[in-house]
């Protein structure tokens, strides 16, 4: 719906953003790709010649690879599940009439403002520490053996921390979506004799589909690359090593840039598989 003139202007105006992002993506990616075919060991003097596909083979055949992919998916999936489910419940609750709604909303949003490093530190030390943590005190108070959160339930702990950080986001989006639901629709279904549960299932949930899509999309983007939470809490031990973390270990702990770069390329591939999958869904849902 526009003239030729505005179309060419549009192309021009999109250029800075597109070129910048293209550069941001391509330049380091090309370098990573280049390194991934190299035997590049900075601590042994840097570039030690071509390595062919050695790095790729080595990265995938390493015993840590598949568990790390699995850990990544478990964390992303777990957090998504918790935040969306609790987010819906919380949004429904916050939508009810009550006193002090504004204050409650502030309380619920707050975790979103907390730096991941800080939240990881606080949870790890002040809550999950098996001796001095609040949870340990709580368990001990009820006479139970305190749980060693970060070692015995490392994935669950990380999911808990990350979910805490992202629950506000999910809640807010879903709340806004619920508030936009035409109340006449609900009243109509009430007149039609639908009990609360089916009203939720058949009216509210479908209405939330679009909001849920956005929550899933945005959170996946951020969750695929969570790092600080793992770095601070478990350092990748106890099966909490995600693909991102594995690459971190290869590149920065072992300083095997070639191997790590190959891992980086795998991560790009994984991200793209997930991206395509997501975009399919989102693309459909965003048009509405």
């Amino acid at each position, binding site marked *: 719906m*526009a*003239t030729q003139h505005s179309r060419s202007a549009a192309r021009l105006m999109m250029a800075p953003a597109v070129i910048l992002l293209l550069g941001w993506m391509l330049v380091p990616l090309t370098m990573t790709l280049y390194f991934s075919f190299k035997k590049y060991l900075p601590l042994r003097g840097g570039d030690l010649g071509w390595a062919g596909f050695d790095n790729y083979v080595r990265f995938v055949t390493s015993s840590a690879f598949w568990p790390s992919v699995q850990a990544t998916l478990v964390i992303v999936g777990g957090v998504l599940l918790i935040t969306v489910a609790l987010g819906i419940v919380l949004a429904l609750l916050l939508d009810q009439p009550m006193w002090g709604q504004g204050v409650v909303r502030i309380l619920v949003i707050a975790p979103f403002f907390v730096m991941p490093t800080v939240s990881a530190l606080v949870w790890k030390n002040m809550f999950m520490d098996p001796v001095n943590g609040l949870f340990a005190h709580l368990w001990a108070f009820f006479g139970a053996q305190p749980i060693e959160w970060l070692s015995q339930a490392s994935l669950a702990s990380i999911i808990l921390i990350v979910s805490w950080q992202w629950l506000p986001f999910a809640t807010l989006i879903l709340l806004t979506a619920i508030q936009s639901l035409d109340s006449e629709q609900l009243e109509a279904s009430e007149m039609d004799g639908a009990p609360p549960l089916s009203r939720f299932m058949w009216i509210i949930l479908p209405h939330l589909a679009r909001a849920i899509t956005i929550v899933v999309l945005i959170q996946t983007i951020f969750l695929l690359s969570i790092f600080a939470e793992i770095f601070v809490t478990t350092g990748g031990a106890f099966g909490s090593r995600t693909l991102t973390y594995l690459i971190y270990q290869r590149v920065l702990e072992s300083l095997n840039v070639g191997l790590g770069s190959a891992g980086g390329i795998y991560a790009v591939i994984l991200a793209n598989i997930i991206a395509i999958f997501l975009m399919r869904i989102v693309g459909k849902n965003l048009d509405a």
Partner: protein
Amino acid sequence: MGQITLQKVSKKFGNAEVIPPLDLTIEDGEFTVFVGPSGCGKSTLLRLIAGLEDITSGSILIDGTDATDQPPAKRGLAMVFQSYALYPHMTVRKNIAFPMRMAGIDQAEQDRRIEQAAAALNLTDYLDRRPGQLSGGQRQRVAIGRAIVREPSAFLFDEPLSNLDAALRVGMRLEIGELHKRLRTTMIYVTHDQVEAMTMADKIVVLRAGVIEQVGTPLELYRTPRNTFVAGFIGSPKMNLLEGEEASRHDAHTVGIRPEHIDVAEEGGLWSGRVGVAEHLGSDTFFHVHETGLAETITVRAPGEVNFRHGDRITLSPRLEQLHRFDRDGARIA
């Protein structure tokens, strides 16, 4: 000055031809209305004239100069949008001043024209309000004010009254009509409402699927519709179109008779039928008559005092001199 000429203008969106090549001339000072059912391409045609869309082929001349490749701002036209398209973050004064600001007109002249327009449109008291604080009619007037101050060679109206309630619509119709009388500037007005077209236009352009069906004054269109489409579109209630035996009797494929050209009586008419719904408007009464054996329903317009009820049997007498005859293709038989 504002003569607008379209030569072989066509428009395609992708592969879909929305407007096949057409020619049209709008004379200076004329009030032209584009009318047609929704989706007929009338708004697109207007936007082509405005320059908001590129034409696919052909050319547009404004006052004899080729404006085909000119951007909208350079064409010297002003447009009033269906949604009024007021700038919500500006006051009424700023809204009206905006085109002048863009044209770099000096402040004193701007103020003068704003005062003048505001006075003419009864907006003086609202100049410092924002569009959000105005009623629909007032917004409409602001949109017109914004168009006036540019002193354009032509005004373009894109269904400007469709968002107003019925009473206001009649009022605004008159205001726009008077505005035209006062300014004597070319106006092109798009509507799907044939009543608006009939009441306001000097010239009506009836469009269907991007094709011009007929161009003429309101009465020409009423009296001598060129085809069944125009016949059915112009006039309210719609013309009754009959086919079959009754048409053959008049050597036509289709005959049309307007509801106001049929007389009703208890008996003695040419046709007979049973009253379905009777709509009493006070001055007039419309009868929807069934079981005539001619068509599903025949609509008849009778004086207000005529009183038949649902289910009554009545007879109808068409005034045969007012009969319109059309051939197999729907074209008028002279």
